[in-house]
């Protein structure tokens, strides 16, 4: 006992008066009386408890915070009992039996908490503080503890097995901490336990089967941990269980059929695990069940019809599994059901009409399955339904008009099916509808004007159907609309100006239709618009300058129409614009200088129009520009020097204009450039060696210009080059050996220049080459034998050069060659008979050479040969007997 010192003091004081027995008796009586009743005398109990509490208080990091536990103090004699301290309750004997310090911001550890000082404590609640460190094993010493809640703290480490000593414990709450390790099997000894909540920790390993001994357990929460292994079948012994939540772990194996014994179970959550196998039909025995969520597992097999027995079920979530088979009609018996989600499975067959009995159903998600057949017209009876998603299935037939009765419906998703027929006007009755998605079906007919009644509609997706007719002007009444997608239909007529009323519209997609007329200037009123795509229609007239008001516009797609007039200079106000595509129209006039203000512009496509004038130097301000296509216009003048600033460029097309610039001065180094086409212009000057410093360059096309000088050998450093076309220029000198380094070169076209010298055998190492045209140059000497290595070649043209010697035999390796033109050279000797091995050859021209000897008779076996010309040689002998020769004009022979 700890009370001795004070007793000894009293006896010592009395010893001189031992003669007076009465006094002694009275004193002893007094002492005994005080010991049992008078607080001043029992102070040694609570001093111990008070000191233990104060010691722990001082260990807290924030104990100096004046307001924290301010009543916990000994400096006033009348307050030496902790029983009056905040959060402390004592029993009638003055012993601490309850500590309740929830949500008061305690910050610290439990290491200095003397658990053994509180033998009478039944209740310890430290919920929602900032306590951390391990849970000390001494916690097992509070042997009378009935309630322990350390949840919502930052405790780490493992759960001490000593917790199993707390045999009176009814509540164990350790949730929302950072506890790791496994659940000690000793928890299974807490046979009084009613409430077990260890959720939201980092607990791992198996669920101890010993937990199956907790026969009084009512709630069992282990969710949000990393528990693995299978669910112990022993859990089926917990007959008092009403709530079992093991969701969001790594549990595998199958669901134990013994769970079907839990006759009091109201909630069963096993979702977000890796549970496999089929759903045990015994689950159908859980007559008290109101919530069943097995979603996000790997469950397979079919849905047991026995689930139809769960007459109290309000929520049934089986989504994101691999369930197959059809939806059992018995589900229609679940008259209490309000949420049914079977989406993202492999369910097939038709939707059972019995579902129309589910009069309380608010949510019905069957999307992303393989359901077929039609939508039961009985669905019109589901008056409580607010969310219906049947998307991504194989549903056919028409949309039942009865759906128009679902007055509470907020979302209707029928997208990605094979629904046909027309959109019925009854849909316009669904006044609560905020989201209507019927896209990707086979719907035909016109858009019913009644859709204009859906005043709450925020999303309307009708794209990718076969809708025709015009866009009803009533769509302009949908003031809540933020996303309107009617693209990829057969809509015609003009765009109704009323769309300009849709002040909340962020996305307007009308592309891939047959819309005609001009773009209404009212579209410029859509100040919230960020995406506008009208491409691939038959829109004509000029682009309304009002579009320049769309200050939030990020992407504007108007390509493939018949728009005329000029590009409005007001486009320069579209400061949010990152994509502007106007290609394939009839736009004329100049490119407005104001486009240089669009500093966020990443893609500018104005190709295939009738634009004239010069390229504004302001384009060079667009430092973010990745893609610039101005090709196929009538642009003149030179490339602005500012183009040297466009260092972000990935793709540049200026081809097919009348541009004239010194090509060596207009460009610089573009580290990200993959594609450049300057062909069909009047560019002059020499090719800069800097092009070899564009490491990502894949296509370089400078053909049909007035370029002079040599091919710089440094160009060989562009190791990704796939297409190199320098044809129809005035390039001189030899073809640099360095071109043989292009491991990825597919197409090499250097025709119609003044290249001279002999070909390097290294060109034969271009193993990926499919197309090689060196025709009309001044190349001489022999055709390298190494060309026989170019086994992917299907086109080889070396005509109009000065090649001499014989045709190399190795050409026989070019088995995919369909066109071979060696005409107009000085080739001598006989045609090698190996040429007949070229079984894919369709066109062969060997004319205008000095070939001699007999015409190889094996030509007869070249069955694919369509045209042959061997004229103007010194060949002799019989003409081979094949249709090609018989059909050839006499001049070709």
């Amino acid at each position, binding site marked *: 006992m700890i009370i001795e010192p004070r007793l000894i003091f009293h006896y010592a004081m009395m010893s001189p008066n031992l003669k007076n027995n009465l006094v002694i008796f009275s004193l002893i009586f007094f002492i005994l009386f005080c010991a049992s009743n008078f607080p001043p005398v029992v102070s040694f109990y609570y001093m111990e408890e008070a000191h233990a509490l104060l010691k722990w208080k001082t260990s807290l990091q924030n104990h100096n915070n004046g307001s924290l536990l301010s009543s916990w103090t000994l400096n006033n004699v009348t307050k030496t009992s902790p029983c009056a301290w905040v959060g402390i309750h004592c029993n009638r004997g003055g012993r601490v039996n309850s500590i309740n310090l929830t949500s008061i911001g305690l910050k610290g550890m439990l290491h200095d908490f003397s658990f053994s000082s509180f033998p009478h404590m039944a209740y310890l609640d430290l919920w929602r503080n900032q306590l951390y460190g391990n849970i000390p094993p001494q916690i097992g010493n509070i042997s009378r503890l009935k309630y322990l809640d350390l949840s919502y703290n930052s405790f780490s480490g493992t759960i001490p097995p000593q917790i199993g000593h707390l045999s009176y414990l009814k509540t164990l709450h350790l949730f929302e901490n950072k506890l790791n390790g496994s659940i000690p099997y000793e928890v299974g000894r807490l046979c009084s336990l009613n409430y077990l*909540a260890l959720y939201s920790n980092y607990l791992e390993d198996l669920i101890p089967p010993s937990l199956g001994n907790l026969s009084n357990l009512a*709630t069992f*929460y282990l*969710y949000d941990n990393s528990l693995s292994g299978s669910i112990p079948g022993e859990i089926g012994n917990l007959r008092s269980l009403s*709530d079992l*939540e093991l*969701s969001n772990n790594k549990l595998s194996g199958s669901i134990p059929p013994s769970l079907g014994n839990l006759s009091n179970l109201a909630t069963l*959550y096993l*979702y977000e695990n890796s549970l496999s196998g089929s759903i045990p039909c015994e689950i159908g025995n859980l007559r008290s069940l109101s919530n069943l*969520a097995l*979603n996000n597992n790997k469950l397979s097999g079919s849905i047991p019809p026995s689930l139809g027995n769960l007459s109290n079920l309000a929520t049934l*979530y089986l*989504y994101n599994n691999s369930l197959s088979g059809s939806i059992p009609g018995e589900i229609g018996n679940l008259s209490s059901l309000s949420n049914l*989600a079977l*989406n993202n499975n492999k369910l097939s067959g038709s939707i059972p009409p019995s579902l129309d009995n589910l009069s309380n159903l608010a949510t019905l*998600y069957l999307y992303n399955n393989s359901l077929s057949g039609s939508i039961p017209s009985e669905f019109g009876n589901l008056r409580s339904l607010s969310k219906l*998603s049947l998307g991504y299935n194989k549903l056919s037939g028409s949309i039942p008009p009865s759906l128009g009765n679902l007055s509470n419906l907020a979302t209707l*998703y029928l997208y990605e099916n094979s629904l046909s027929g027309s959109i019925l006007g009854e849909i316009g009755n669904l006044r609560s509808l905020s989201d209507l*998605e019927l896209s990707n079906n086979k719907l035909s007919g016109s858009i019913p004007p009644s859709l204009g009644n859906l005043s709450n509609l925020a999303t309307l*997706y009708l*794209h990718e159907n076969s809708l025709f007719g015009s866009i009803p002007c009533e769509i302009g009444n949908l003031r809540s609309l933020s996303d309107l*997608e009617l*693209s990829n239909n057969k809509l015609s007529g003009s765009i109704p100006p009323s769309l300009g009323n849709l002040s909340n519209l962020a996305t307007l*997609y009308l*592309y*891939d239709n047959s819309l005609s007329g001009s773009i209404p200037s009212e579209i410029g009123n859509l100040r919230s618009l960020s995406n506008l*795509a009208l*491409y*691939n229609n038959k829109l004509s007239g000029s682009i309304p300058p009002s579009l320049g008001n769309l200050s939030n516009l990020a992407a504007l*797609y108007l*390509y*493939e129409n018949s728009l005329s007039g000029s590009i409005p200079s007001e486009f320069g106000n579209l400061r949010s614009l990152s994509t502007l*595509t106007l*290609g*394939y129209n009839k736009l004329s006039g100049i490119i407005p200088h104001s486009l240089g203000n669009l500093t966020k512009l990443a893609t500018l*496509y104005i190709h295939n129009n009738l634009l004239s004038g010069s390229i504004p130097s302001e384009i060079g301000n667009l430092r973010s520009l990745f893609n610039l296509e101005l090709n196929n216009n009538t642009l003149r003048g030179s490339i602005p020097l500012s183009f040297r600033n466009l260092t972000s460029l990935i793709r540049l097309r200026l081809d097919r204009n009348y541009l004239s610039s010194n090509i060596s001065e207009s460009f610089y180094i573009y580290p990200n450039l*993959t*594609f450049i*086409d300057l062909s069909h212009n009047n560019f002059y000057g020499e090719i800069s060696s800097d092009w070899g410093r564009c490491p990502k360059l*894949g*296509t370089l096309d400078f053909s049909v210009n007035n370029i002079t000088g040599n091919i710089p050998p440094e160009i060989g450093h562009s190791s990704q080059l*796939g*297409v190199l076309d320098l044809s129809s220029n005035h390039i001189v000198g030899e073809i640099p050996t360095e071109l043989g380094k292009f491991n990825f070169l*597919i197409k090499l076209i250097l025709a119609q220049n003044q290249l001279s010298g002999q070909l390097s055998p290294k060109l034969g190492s271009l193993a990926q080459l*499919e197309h090689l045209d060196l025709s009309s140059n001044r190349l001489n000497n022999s055709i390298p034998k190494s060309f026989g290595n170019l*086994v*992917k070649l*299907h086109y080889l043209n070396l005509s109009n050069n000065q090649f001499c010697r014989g045709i190399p035999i190795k050409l026989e390796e070019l088995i*995919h060659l*369909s066109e071979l033109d060696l005409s107009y050279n000085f080739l001598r000797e006989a045609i090698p008979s190996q040429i007949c091995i070229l*079984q*894919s050859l*369709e066109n062969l021209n060997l004319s205008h050479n000095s070939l001699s000897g007999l015409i190889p008779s094996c030509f007869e076996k070249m*069955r*694919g040969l369509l045209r042959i010309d061997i004229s103007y040689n010194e060949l002799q002998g019989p003409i081979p007997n094949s249709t090609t020769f018989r059909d050839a004009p006499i001049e070709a022979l």
Partner: protein
Amino acid sequence: MAPISLILSFFLFISPALSTNSEGNALHALRSRFKDPTNVLQSWDPTLVNPCTWFHVTCDSNNHVIRLDLGNSNISGTLGPELGQLQHLQYLELYMNDISGKIPKELGNLKSLVSMDMYQNKLEGEIPKSFANLKSLKFLRLNNNKLTGSIPRELTTLSDLKVFDVSNNGLCGTIPVDGPFRSFPMESFENNKLNGPELQGLVPYDFGC
């Protein structure tokens, strides 16, 4: 106890494929079926208006795809029906790859096809009867695959067919003798389970297959 919010994920915000070019879309769909370890399809950018600047794709002057050259390109995967949308395709060169699965019957829609080279792959199943629609076909090389079934008799109507090779497959039945099959060499049929040339009027065409 904290109620659990069950989030039902939707994938509704599918951005539009900003290409009106059905041929580009078809090629892009084909790409998605392929494994391409050497990145030969890297330049296939679906956001471009047409596929005419993609490597290994050749267009005519109307921006229609006329050649697809992916021979010997380390490609594996399967072919899909979308290939049938390349209405102007003349040359389909997919030889010497690791392509498996069946030959889609939709390839029979390629009315302009001159050459189909799919030899040395792992193609299985039958030669589609729809190939009888390829009236311009001159070269058909399907050798060194795992094709089974019989040689469709319908191919005898391909009057332009000049080169035909189905050797080294698992084909069975008899070899047609009509039309262009009059002149194909026996090497084109060897290493199959074929029963030799059809004996007209005596044996049913599919005998023993």
